[in-house]
């Protein structure tokens, strides 16, 4: 089994060899390490993407907007991803961002995962019918178990989820009430002596 350190190093060097800058290569090294750690086929997709770059060109998406449509070619997932991550703080005011035709979109995914950590918000990524919930770069929840190569994402959308609870106030209160059973009811003596500050803490 390859170590994550080897995966990072080889991905970084291969990315540089594929003519990306060293700085971007560093990002891709970290990303592929992340994908493989989460059980997603990073190496496989990176390898096939770099092979396909020998045969065709991809469009560089430098400025991310609410709607990102290709003029002709498919978007490069690395350039689109790095710019999304870099620009995420200005993009989070938008509710949803859409992309058309991103090549090898699994390579785009770790940038979104890291963006989720940067802004401290959960992000919901949809690649055609595949859904990914990105939890602050700590985990990725998906409705798809994919071990293969995903050559293209025709329609992609990213939703910035609000930092809200995924449970009702009632559910919270019920559980809170149960948790209170670990507390000790204070009698006068405890009130007087156990806190240290006494009954009056005004000075």
């Amino acid at each position: 089994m390859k170590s994550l350190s080897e995966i990072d190093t080889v991905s970084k060097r291969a990315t540089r060899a594929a003519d990306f800058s060293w700085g971007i290569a560093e990002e891709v090294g970290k990303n592929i390490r992340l994908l493989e750690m989460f059980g997603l086929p990073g190496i496989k997709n990176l390898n096939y993407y770099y092979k396909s770059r020998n045969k065709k060109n991809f469009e560089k998406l430098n400025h991310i907007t609410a709607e990102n449509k290709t003029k002709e070619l498919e978007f490069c997932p690395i350039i689109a991803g790095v710019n999304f991550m870099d620009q995420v703080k200005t993009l989070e005011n938008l509710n949803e961002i859409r992309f058309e035709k991103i090549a090898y979109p699994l390579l785009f995914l770790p940038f979104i995962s890291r963006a989720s950590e940067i802004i401290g918000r959960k992000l919901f990524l949809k690649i055609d019918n595949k859904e990914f919930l990105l939890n602050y770069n700590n985990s990725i929840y998906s409705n798809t178990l994919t071990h293969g190569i995903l050559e293209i994402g025709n329609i992609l959308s990213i939703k910035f989820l609000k930092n809200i609870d995924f449970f009702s106030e009632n559910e919270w209160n019920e559980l809170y009430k149960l948790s209170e059973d670990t507390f000790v009811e204070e009698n006068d003596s405890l009130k007087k002596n156990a806190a240290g500050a006494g009954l009056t803490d005004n000075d």
Partner: protein
Amino acid sequence: MKIELRDPNIVMKLSRLGSFHQSKLSFLRSFLKEFKDWKYKKDLFELDEFGHGVAVYSFNKNNRVYSLICFANDLDEKERSDRVIATKWDAAFTLYDGSPTKKDIERLKNEVPKQEVGRLSYKELTLSRANKSVRVFDHVVESLSKGIQPDINLLSKVGYLYRTTAVYGSGKFGLADRFRIKNREEIYGPFRLEMMLVYLVRQFTFDQVNHVAKNKDPKKAIALDLEICRNLGIGNSTGLGMAPFIVNHPTLLHNWIHARETALKNIREIKNIKNEDSDLFKNCLKRSVKNITSWNTDSKYQQKKIETLFNDLNIFINFLENNFNFSKEFAFNEIYLWLEKNSGDECVEYVVSMMMEPYNDIINPLVKKMSSEEENYFNIPTDRKVMELKEILENKYSQILNIDFSKKENNKNFWFISKNKEEPRLADRFKENGADLEQPLAIARDIKKLFEKLSLSKNSSTIDKFLAKNNDLRHVVRRAFIVEKFPYSEIQDNTIGESIIPIDMLRLKLSFFGASKFDPRSDKWLRICMFQGAPLAEQLNNYDDHWIYNSLN
């Protein structure tokens, strides 16, 4: 009195970093301290009469076990080479996480001796190989088998029976990734498992030499005297492989240097020095001078450094004994200021190391701060402004920005990775091929480029917009934001200039390892010695913390 930390523009110059020496902060010393109450055991020793076979040594405590597995092989004289291009060695080692089964040993027997072309697993933590100093090893075997102890002078000159030529860890060749083990308290200090490997290898070399001598003449042979063993270390040949490490791990480098600088600052701030502390300082200093005289090197460069150090130290000791009184306030600060005025870099840094000796209370907490969670500082704060980045460069790289990289001498070399061994190398870009595949280690040049590009950008613009057009400089944008928080993270020198001495980078790292006897064999590789004078494994539970100055050699 409040003393400021030393200026990174002075400390982080290569000439200064290349003058660092081992200290109480060094990893091999902190390793011994951490493992002194672990139970040491020789678990397996199955060698033939020539010393070839398998041995296993372990440290264990509270159900945690680390085992060194040694494979000693027959090696044709013609195949013995310390160079990284070698493919066979006298012995190969791995540090195993736990107690290996027979099946593990069988598996590793096929992989460990192959080193870089073998495959290890997440159960193995570090990997290394070593060659005998044949001259010394044979002499010791010959002497012991005749019932006499070997010639101390010869041993003293070399300092070891074996020298390692590489020690790998952190996920290389399938070894365990750092994330698997980083939360273990006993290894919360850099390179602790690498140090453990080297330390146990040292024990193996003594057991092997005794074993071979005994087999040579079972009736007459005696064991190598324990005091002689204690005064032998493990040699190490090391080259450029180490140099990029300190560039590629900026926050880790900062934490090492910051620990050293904080120690110095805290010691200079001590108002009244206790007699016992000044006595210990003076004692260590005087005893250490003997070690300097035992450095043997053919390198003119190093000979000159040793000579200057030796002379400066003698002048300093004379000053200390005849013109200095430790009863004055802030005595160590006085000493430091005197050194800066009267001594060279080598001597200043040597004495700085010595100053730490009496102060466990200052040093011990710093040892625990010398690792780094590098991932936490990887992301670029792209919402910051161009103006802010420019200010960082002006403040943190002021001398670098004065270098003119259009001059050939400032742009002479390039760093690359050799295809043969995947190891870093340095070459002249105007004479050799390959500069188009240059590694991102020309930080000074790229920082200057970044500054020039920023100067053409709108100050109020944000970094995300700058990067969208200038991703070729992304690697140095990241570094600049790191250096803003970690001022000792960057070498304040030109690593591609004509006058670069790469072994300065190696010496910096090796000094933190705790190496001694720096012996440069060229400007790109050197030999050193580790653990010379260190307590033997069975003496660990009761040893002198200042063992490094007790060496007889």
